[in-house]
């Protein structure tokens, strides 16, 4: 027991010690967290009136971010499949870090839901046993269950593997593999359930299309891995973590397939809506051409579409995806493209035109943007801190020998000061 506590403090030390770059990074995150959370306090006091949401558009920027981040979290599975099922070694070694990203993303999802609640003090009404969870009828209840389940699952895998490595023990595939295999359908389910959350509302024709869940998955498999490619490159540069080019190249290839599929589904939906030209076309018209003189989202959606198209061709070409510059460009384009498409471009048109035909052009207020930045900063900090402990363990600089913290301790601390700059 004493050892455990000691180890915990050693791990904690990892967090507080770092290079100047690390402190600056933490400082930036701290600033945005402070900004976000102080804005949130005002929101708590005054109510959600500080947002641009109104009865006509009752969900906005918070839910947009939530939806995008569920995709990021779900996309971890894309790396798990080649890593554990097909034993693709280069990816297997880094898959833990994408699972950590999933953990951070789920945390952000939960935070985005919390800041969107009118009464966060009553959130316990939603818990099974304590409250009166409306299961299985409400898709939101399903979402709470699958998201938290996914969180627990990922924490379990990451913690188990890290713990074994830190203690110089082989981790048992008999433990990891079932959990990992379980996490694959689970990851698909978190995004599917989130899609169904919107999909299951006949009142909103824009969401009530059977293609919604497949489109969710396809776009998530673009943005999530793209985010990871960028993160991996950063990690490679600022820490002693080794990530093979072939891993990144493989991920890029997967994104190309996912984006191809995503664009195909997009085309299928556009064909159906525009060719049939029913009343349900209105939200699409609003998104891409404007409706009754309102076109607030038009430039954004075209940006998203063009970015996705360019990125698709970049990822498709082996030369472009193996070139660092074009690869990163493509990744950024995909992230922005999907962020618009699966964020504001998904949530807002569900409400435009409204159920009574009204058009209220929603655009987030400063408060919403600040609070969202705060949530992103909190998530980024969480991920940074996880990496700060996990990387030294992974690279072998931080080890707790079986029973007592010996071998790596001093080396680890020294190591973190000198080489691990993150």
């Amino acid at each position, binding site marked *: 027991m004493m050892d455990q506590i000691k180890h915990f403090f050693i791990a904690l030390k990892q967090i507080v010690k770092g290079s100047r770059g690390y402190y600056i990074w933490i400082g930036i995150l701290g600033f945005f967290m402070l900004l976000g959370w102080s804005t949130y306090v005002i929101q708590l006091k005054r109510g959600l009136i500080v947002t641009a949401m109104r009865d006509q558009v*009752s969900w906005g920027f918070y839910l947009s971010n939530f939806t995008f981040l569920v995709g990021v979290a779900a996309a971890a599975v894309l790396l798990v499949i080649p890593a554990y099922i097909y034993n693709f070694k280069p990816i297997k070694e880094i898959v833990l870090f994408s699972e950590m990203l999933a953990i951070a993303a789920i945390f952000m999802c939960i935070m985005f839901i919390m800041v969107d609640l009118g009464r966060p003090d*009553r959130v316990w009404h939603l818990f099974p046993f304590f409250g009166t*969870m*409306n299961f299985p009828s409400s898709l939101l209840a399903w979402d709470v269950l699958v998201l938290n389940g996914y969180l627990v699952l990922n924490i379990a895998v990451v913690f188990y593997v890290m713990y074994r490595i830190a203690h110089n023990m082989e981790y048992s595939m008999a433990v990891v593999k079932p959990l990992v295999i379980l996490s694959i359908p689970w990851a698909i389910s978190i995004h599917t359930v989130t899609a169904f959350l919107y999909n299951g509302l006949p009142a909103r024709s824009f969401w009530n299309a059977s293609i919604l869940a497949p489109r969710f998955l396809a776009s998530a498999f673009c943005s999530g891995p793209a985010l990871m490619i960028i993160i991996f490159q950063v990690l490679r540069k600022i820490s002693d973590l080794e990530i093979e080019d072939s891993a990144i190249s493989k991920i890029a290839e997967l994104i190309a397939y996912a984006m191809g599929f995503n664009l195909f589904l997009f085309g299928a939906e556009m064909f159906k809506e525009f060719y049939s030209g029913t*009343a349900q076309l209105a939200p699409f018209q609003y998104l891409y051409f404007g409706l009754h003189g309102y076109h607030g989202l038009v430039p954004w959606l075209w940006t998203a579409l063009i970015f996705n198209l360019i990125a698709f061709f970049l990822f498709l070409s082996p030369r472009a995806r193996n070139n660092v510059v074009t690869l990163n460009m493509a990744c950024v384009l995909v992230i922005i493209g999907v962020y618009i498409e699966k964020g504001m471009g998904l949530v807002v048109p569900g409400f435009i035109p409204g159920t*009574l035909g009204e058009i209220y052009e929603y655009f987030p207020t400063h408060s919403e943007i600040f609070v969202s930045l705060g949530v992103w900063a909190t998530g980024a900090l969480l991920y940074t801190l996880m990496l700060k402990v996990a990387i030294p363990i992974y690279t072998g600089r931080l080890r707790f020998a079986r029973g007592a913290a010996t071998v790596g301790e001093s080396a680890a601390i020294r190591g973190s000061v000198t080489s691990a700059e993150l």
Partner: protein
Amino acid sequence: MKEPKISPPREHKVARRSFLKGAALGSVALALPSRDADASIWDAFFQKHFREMNDKELKKVLKRLEQEYAEKYGVDIDISANKPLSGVLFGYGLDLSRCIGCRRCVYACVGENNQSRDPQIQWITVLRFKKGDKWVNDLENADKYYNPDKVPEEGYFYMPTQCQQCENPPCVSACPTQATWKEDDGIIVVDYNWCIGCRYCMAACPYGARHFNWTGPGIPKDEINTKTHYLGNRPRYHGIVEKCTFCIQRTRNTPGRYPACVEICPVGARKFGNMLDPKSEIRYCIENKRIFRLKEDLNTYPKFFYFFAT
């Protein structure tokens, strides 16, 4: 007929649930400011779901709420918690050939049901359509901000909307906490002390009938209707959803008054009654007029019937 429901199967669980709640939320309690940790704050925080309270608990809660309102608004508010009348299923009829779009109903509803004046919340929305334009299923051409000198206007007609009290309500199945449900008399109600404000029900409602308190309600003290119902017109809180309840505080009585919107309508376009009573006005409408329901393609089966008397 059906007995008023207090969910008997749940009651025996109360002890365990209370314990669990207590244990889990005890830690939350410690983390929250203790400065004004007056007992009633915790009573409010731990208040149970309306349908899980027994009569004694409910009485206590009503007393506490009345006290809270007295402190907040400086008026004595009477909160009843009348159960549904047996053998009653409420239905509503609206004669579109009569409505002149004068919005008297909107404001009668606001006054009767203590809706927030600032920021403005209105449960009834009157839509205006140009004759010959699309309507019913596609409300794209609806205008709710029309403001002429006189109504009715030449070449237009009007369609008021409010909660349609669906028999198959999408809002109820959406709610993640069962804070909204359909009562035995068919009214969809919200427990304002249980709603967490996620607004999923608002996304689910096809009729724009649910309204959110984006901030605390603003009601002038001297305009408060003090005769209220727990599930109806008692003043609401910030961060929760509210909606039309067919004036539950008026109608769920013997004898029960007509809803405020029915009473105010200068042209008598609004009809209300018990659908299980063959002699009621609403049954006459259903049996003798050509009725339709809004967005019938969604299979929500509203108990709000539009009809044309002529």
